[in-house]
């Protein structure tokens, strides 16, 4: 079985700041893969590299067997054109910490937008799917609301529906519950749990250790741009081997 995401020695720096210092990991299909670690450890940056919102400086990163951002011909790498990068991104859904819903569109229009614009789907088909997806995230009755009329938790669920509308093979979650009031976190996690049960491959950057332990299939603890510890979430969280992991977990658990 080929890995859904495969990273080999991935490096990323902004000028002098070296953010990722050689990341090696593999995410299997249908796996819920949790990335945890202190802020500034590079977990969000790594996530953004996977759909080429950030460009890596060294190493190899591939999604579903395809190199991210490059085409390999012989022993040479060719940068992909913008349109080719966009085509790759269709298969990768992303959910942001700050939701980033389109504020000038209703919830329904937010979910319909990409299938119509990117896949050239008929409006009726897109609408039908969007309504179904909004129902699935529990917001069927909010489809006509603008994002400003929704709570943070509702906005994040619309954002998940928007990403799902492209029928992605892989979903990236960048701290999806960090900007939410504690009482609203549960609804979003429930939707993610449902996705995991349906077999979606998910990479989740999160501080929700309960979610990681309960839903996660694999967990990686990152610190200072390197993978410190990896394994089954239940093992890593209850019995961390590395001092840095222990120190971090003692603060968040």
């Amino acid at each position, binding site marked *: 079985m080929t890995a859904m995401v495969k990273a080999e020695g991935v490096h990323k720096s902004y000028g002098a700041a070296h953010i990722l210092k050689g990341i090696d990991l593999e995410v299997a299909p249908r796996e819920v893969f949790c990335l945890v670690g202190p802020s500034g450890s590079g977990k969000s940056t790594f996530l953004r590299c996977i759909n080429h919102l950030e460009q890596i400086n060294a190493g190899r990163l591939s999604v579903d067997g395809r190199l991210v951002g490059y085409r390999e011909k012989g022993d040479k790498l060719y940068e992909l054109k913008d349109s080719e990068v966009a085509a790759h991104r269709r298969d990768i859904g992303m959910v942001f910490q700050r939701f980033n819903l389109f504020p000038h569109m209703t919830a329904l229009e937010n979910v319909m937008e990409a299938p119509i614009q990117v896949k050239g789907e008929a409006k009726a088909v897109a609408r039908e799917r969007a309504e179904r997806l909004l129902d699935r995230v529990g917001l069927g009755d909010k489809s006509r609301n603008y994002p400003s009329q929704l709570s943070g938790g509702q906005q994040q669920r619309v954002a998940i529906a928007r990403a799902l509308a492209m029928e992605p093979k892989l979903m990236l979650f960048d701290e999806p519950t960090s900007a939410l009031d504690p*009482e609203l976190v549960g609804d979003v996690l429930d939707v993610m749990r449902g996705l995991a049960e349906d077999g979606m491959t998910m990479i989740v950057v999160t501080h929700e250790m309960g979610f990681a332990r309960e839903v996660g299939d694999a967990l990686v603890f990152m610190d200072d741009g390197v993978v410190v510890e990896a394994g089954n979430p239940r093992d890593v969280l209850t019995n961390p081997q590395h001092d840095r992991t222990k120190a971090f977990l003692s603060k968040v658990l």
Partner: protein
Amino acid sequence: MTDKFDKAPAEEPPEDSPVAKAEATPASTPPPEQIKAIPVRHWGRWASGVIVVALFGMLIYAFSQGNVQWGTVGDFIFDDRILAGMGRTLLISVLSMAIGLVLGVVFAVMRLSKNPVTGAVAWLYIWFFRGTPVFVQLLLWFNLALIFPILNIGFYKDEMIDVMTPFMVALLGLGLNEGAYMAEIVRAGIQSVDEGQTEASHALGMNNSKTMRRVVLPQAMRVIVPPTGNEFINLLKTSSLVAAVTYVDLTRAAQNIGSTSFAVMEMLLVASVWYLVLTSIFSVGQYYLERRYARGSLRTLPPTPWQKVKRNLSLSSFSSPRGA
């Protein structure tokens, strides 16, 4: 903005909650007695109001005593020459604004592009056309034949003096000047849109041009429209400068009549009336346009003036606003 807020009205309060009890037995709690107090007297407001009314009255009196032939103003307000001049003012303003808008978007995108050459060219254009007075620019176009007697752009060749009609001078002078201002307005609008919007759009697989057209520009419009409305109303009035390059707009038409009929002041008042009418009409249009682009950013749209009037009427006819 919480889930609680949305759910609250739908949920029935449980039977034993204090809210339910209070509603069930309204007689047990009599309505609180309204406070009756002597309101504060705002003497300062009264005094300043009287002074302002007195000054305004003096102004009206001065004009009524001045040597203005008000009848002449009325006679000429619908004069064919005045109306034709107003048509040209409107035409040159709308066309210049259209040129300004197109140039504005083009130069704003050029300035924001990663290509340093286009960025520098855009900067240079804005620097020149915003840095020199529009009156001087009009005179430059007007006198272009002095340095280029023949216009020759390969497929087209003609005497410059034939190309640079008063209309062309006015159009180029106002349009290119407006483009420089619009470029800065559009650039500010594009930059005001959160970067997360572009990222979300890209992450969904939308390319750069679709992201710009579907996601960034519609949101930028909210920032672009109000100053653009100001620009247009400004342009309507600035267009009176084209009178100096012999284009017969509203101002020049009024001046022409004024100088032959010895009613200079009256004709300027006629022109002023029409300028006021035009700017008033476009101010109303601007209001509705802004309302349209506020969709999604405000939870409830502000009422239209007509809705306000209706609401005020219904309030005052049935009860005092204070009691409501």
